[in-house]
């Protein structure tokens, strides 16, 4: 039986970054991910019934009548749709996902935030010192120049 979960992504980004985030969680998904820049893809439940929304990215599950199911999706698949406020939301059947991917919304959120922070730092010329996991949290260390307007002048 499907275990549908939905979650909103906190940061806005392109489809390319979302795709990269999914591949970073389960690399085998790369050849199963379907994307549509117009957001017209369907997502199917385990009995082949369509979910009501339209999606920009879909990873098919076994309920999809026309596609091969990706590993980790026993019944239904995963879909990423756009919400009215422009943010992304993920609908996913988490019943067959490997344990490290159960919290997939959090994982995608984490990836997008980390990539965005690192890219922003690079664009500003900040130097990345470390990117490491500590107690389940990701820590990124960088040095940044201080604008003179913020310095305390003796």
């Amino acid at each position, binding site marked *: 039986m499907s275990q549908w979960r939905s979650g909103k992504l906190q940061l806005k980004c392109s489809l390319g*970054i979302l795709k990269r985030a999914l591949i970073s969680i389960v690399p085998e998904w790369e050849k199963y991910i379907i994307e549509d820049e117009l957001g017209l893809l369907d997502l199917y439940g385990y009995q082949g019934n369509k979910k009501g929304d339209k999606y920009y990215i879909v990873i098919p599950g076994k309920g999809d009548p026309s596609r091969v199911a990706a590993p980790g999706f026993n019944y239904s698949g995963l879909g990423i749709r756009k919400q009215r406020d422009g943010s992304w939301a993920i609908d996913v059947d988490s019943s067959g996902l490997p344990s490290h991917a159960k919290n997939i919304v959090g994982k995608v959120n984490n990836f997008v935030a980390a990539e965005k922070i690192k*890219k922003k730092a690079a664009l500003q010329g900040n130097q990345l010192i470390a990117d490491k996991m500590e107690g389940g949290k990701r820590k990124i260390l960088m040095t940044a120049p201080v604008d003179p307007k913020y*310095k305390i002048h003796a």
Partner: protein
Amino acid sequence: MHIPEGHVLIEVTIDENGNYKEEIVGHGANSSCTTEDDDKLLQDLFGDLGEDDDWGKTEEFYDKTRVKTPQKPHINTPFKDTPVVAEEEKRVDLGFGV
């Protein structure tokens, strides 16, 4: 850890749900700020992180989504911008002798 002069050391912590928190954890020489200015500095650096819908688009999608328009031939100005190079004079021996 050595922090260069005029720089601060920033630590960004991202939890398992993607919530992130940035914090200045060290100051190099000649980079002291008030706590309030530390906050403003972080706001300058990371304040607009959630705003850009298309972030990442130029990396992977730009080429795919770009509409490629064919270049029009320059019919009216065929030699504009083309440097004029004198063709080397060719001497042909016609057999009359000199």
